[in-house]
């Protein structure tokens, strides 16, 4: 039978591998992953998407789902930790060395996720507000609709700098350089939970357990996620 | 055979044309005669059901096709007429054979390219259309178009035939031949005809009664013999005769 998983876009590579492994261990079972921005997933689940597991990139998205009573709140757990990092194009033409350099007159554009709609944007805004750089960055804002768009802009050198998850930056090692980690007042913790619905696949709980098991955590670690 | 009195006003920008036609005739074969723009085509279109009069009535062979009083307006489909349009109105996407067979095949599909119903064959021979059966309207000459349109109209064995200058684009040999065919058809089927033509010979051969239209009104009527005593009058004579009539 099929287990349907709705997972945040930043989990794409890790969850694809987790699904494959789980299928090998449980022949006859299929894991179907549907990736999108966390907020999109929430909307789909609220409106009755036949999904069994929801993995979100931040608590706010999961909270919305819980509020709408579509989540088995008891099964909710934080399963990985991530970090938000400042990145620049690999050749770093503006010689940016720290957050403070973003104030420079030569820095024209800085990309980050839209705080209204993207978890990584929310983390970024909170972090920058704490370090006192928010107003400087805001003046140079280019909003991405998800992490990968921000990453793409930086990799192509269209923007001078950007904020993404550390796991995303790791995908394009040759094209972007990580300058520093943004201290985050909210911990960057990804929650996961079973979706509340009548015909939920009984094996969904097994898959959830597998993700939380040492085997699953090893896969996640491979893609740069650390333990919660 | 036909009894009608209709009124209709047409507006084209500032210009206005009023049609007010009364015809009452027991003659089965009528000709409409009159100058360009006098309303001949509009009259025939009203009979065919393509022009809706403002008021009045039209009766053919006792059947009421239109009556503003009784609130009757038969759809063109229900009138069972044949109408040869002045511009032929051939279907550009169908070949000559399909055009001729169009009215003979009911339903939702056009006749197939090489299917030729028996009823059509007679007209194809009579009008010498064999050679061009597979051609499309864009590939045939003016006279050929006119003959195809005529064959298409006659093939459905209509209750009444409306002919708007049916032979105008034909050379004299063909014209004589087709005039003969039409006359024979009228005799054989005893089919009422309304004919618009500018050729006195057509009137003599194909009509028993002539109505003259001017400026949207019937101004005179008489027999063809009164109009063209010789039956082969030259155009000048024709006109004079009509003026007297």
């Amino acid at each position, binding site marked *: 039978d099929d287990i349907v998983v709705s997972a945040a876009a930043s989990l794409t590579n890790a969850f694809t591998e987790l699904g494959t492994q789980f299928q090998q261990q449980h022949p006859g079972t299929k894991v*179907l992953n549907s990736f999108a921005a966390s907020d*999109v997933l929430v909307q789909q689940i609220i409106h009755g998407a036949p999904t069994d597991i929801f993995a979100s990139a931040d608590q706010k998205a999961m909270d919305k789902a819980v509020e709408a009573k579509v989540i088995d709140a008891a099964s909710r757990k934080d399963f990985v930790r991530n970090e938000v990092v400042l990145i620049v194009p690999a050749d770093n033409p503006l010689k940016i060395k720290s957050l403070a350099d973003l104030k420079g007159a030569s820095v024209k554009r800085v990309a980050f996720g839209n705080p209204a709609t993207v978890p990584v944007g929310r983390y970024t805004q909170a972090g920058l507000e704490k370090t006192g750089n928010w107003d400087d960055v805001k003046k140079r804002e280019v909003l991405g609709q998800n992490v990968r768009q921000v990453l793409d802009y930086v990799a192509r050198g269209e923007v001078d700098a950007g904020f993404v998850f550390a796991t995303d930056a790791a995908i394009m090692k040759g094209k972007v350089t990580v300058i520093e980690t943004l201290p985050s007042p909210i911990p960057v913790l990804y929650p996961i939970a079973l979706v509340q619905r009548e015909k939920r696949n009984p094996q969904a709980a097994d898959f959830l357990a597998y993700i939380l098991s040492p085997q699953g955590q090893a896969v996640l670690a491979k893609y740069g996620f650390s333990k919660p | 055979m036909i009894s009608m009195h209709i009124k209709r006003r047409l507006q084209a920008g500032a210009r206005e044309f009023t049609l007010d036609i009364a015809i009452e005739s027991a003659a089965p074969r009528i000709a409409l005669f009159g100058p360009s723009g006098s309303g001949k085509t509009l009259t025939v279109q009203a009979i065919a059901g393509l022009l809706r009069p403002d008021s009045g009535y039209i009766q053919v062979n006792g059947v009421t096709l239109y009556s503003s009083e009784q609130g009757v307006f038969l759809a063109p489909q229900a009138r069972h007429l044949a109408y040869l349009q002045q511009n032929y109105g051939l279907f550009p*996407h169908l070949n000559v054979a399909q055009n001729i067979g169009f009215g003979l095949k009911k339903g939702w599909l056009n006749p197939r390219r090489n299917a030729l119903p028996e009823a059509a064959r007679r007209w194809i021979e009579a009008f010498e259309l064999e050679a061009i059966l597979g051609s499309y309207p864009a590939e045939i000459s003016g006279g050929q178009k006119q003959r195809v349109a005529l064959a298409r109209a006659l093939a459905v064995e209509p209750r009444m035939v409306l002919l708007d200058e049916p032979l105008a684009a034909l050379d004299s040999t063909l014209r004589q031949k087709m005039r003969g065919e039409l006359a024979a058809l009228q005799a054989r089927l005893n089919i009422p005809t309304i004919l618009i033509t500018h050729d006195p010979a057509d009137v003599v051969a194909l009509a028993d009664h002539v109505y003259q239209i001017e400026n949207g009104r019937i101004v005179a009527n008489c027999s063809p013999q009164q109009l063209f005593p010789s039956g082969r009058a030259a155009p000048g004579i024709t006109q004079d005769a009509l003026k007297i009539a």
Partner: protein
Amino acid sequence: MSSLTVPLLLSLKVAGWAAFFAAILGIAMAYGLSRWRSRWCDVVDSLLTLPMVLPPTVIGYYLLVLLGRRGWLGPFLEQFGIQLVFTWQGAVIAATVVAFPMVLKAARAAFEGVDHTLEDAARVLGIGAPGVFFRVTLPLALRGILAGVLLAFARALGEFGATLMIAGSIPGRTQTLSISIYEAVQAGNDDLANILVLVTSFTCIAVLWIASQLLPDNLRIKGSRDRS
């Protein structure tokens, strides 16, 4: 290989059905509008064009609200065992809604260009209204309509925002070629993206070319054939 053929076939299935439904809907409405002599015609026409004006994601969101399990129509459909969210049928609906204004506009222009005297001629020959439509009006308008349907097919093939919203992105089930391309680009997997783009382009050119050959030769004539 199946990572290519599966989404390809799915895309063709979805776009084909969407083009089909869009054609039926669009032609029927266009014919109605072209006959309806009223001042409101053009207003209704503009209203029906709205699905083109709204961002596809938003269309998808409204469809979700309408057809979802808690939507207006969803519970009703569920009684009959019809589930649209997260299924390829949902993708067909999304693509149909987005694509049908193209058929509508093209068909309306085509119907209004048909010479009425030819329809009159058919009527006098005793052919009833459906016969006149299928034997005269439709063939004479076919060139324009076909152009619209091909546009609709192309649009449906490229549809992505609305589809992603209502059908999700489940590999093998609802992940169309468009979504695969999107995800490949997002994942920084440029080679795969390029291959997928080539496949889409080639398929689309082939389909459009074949379809344009469907128009019978005799429907191409207008006025005399080129004689010089």
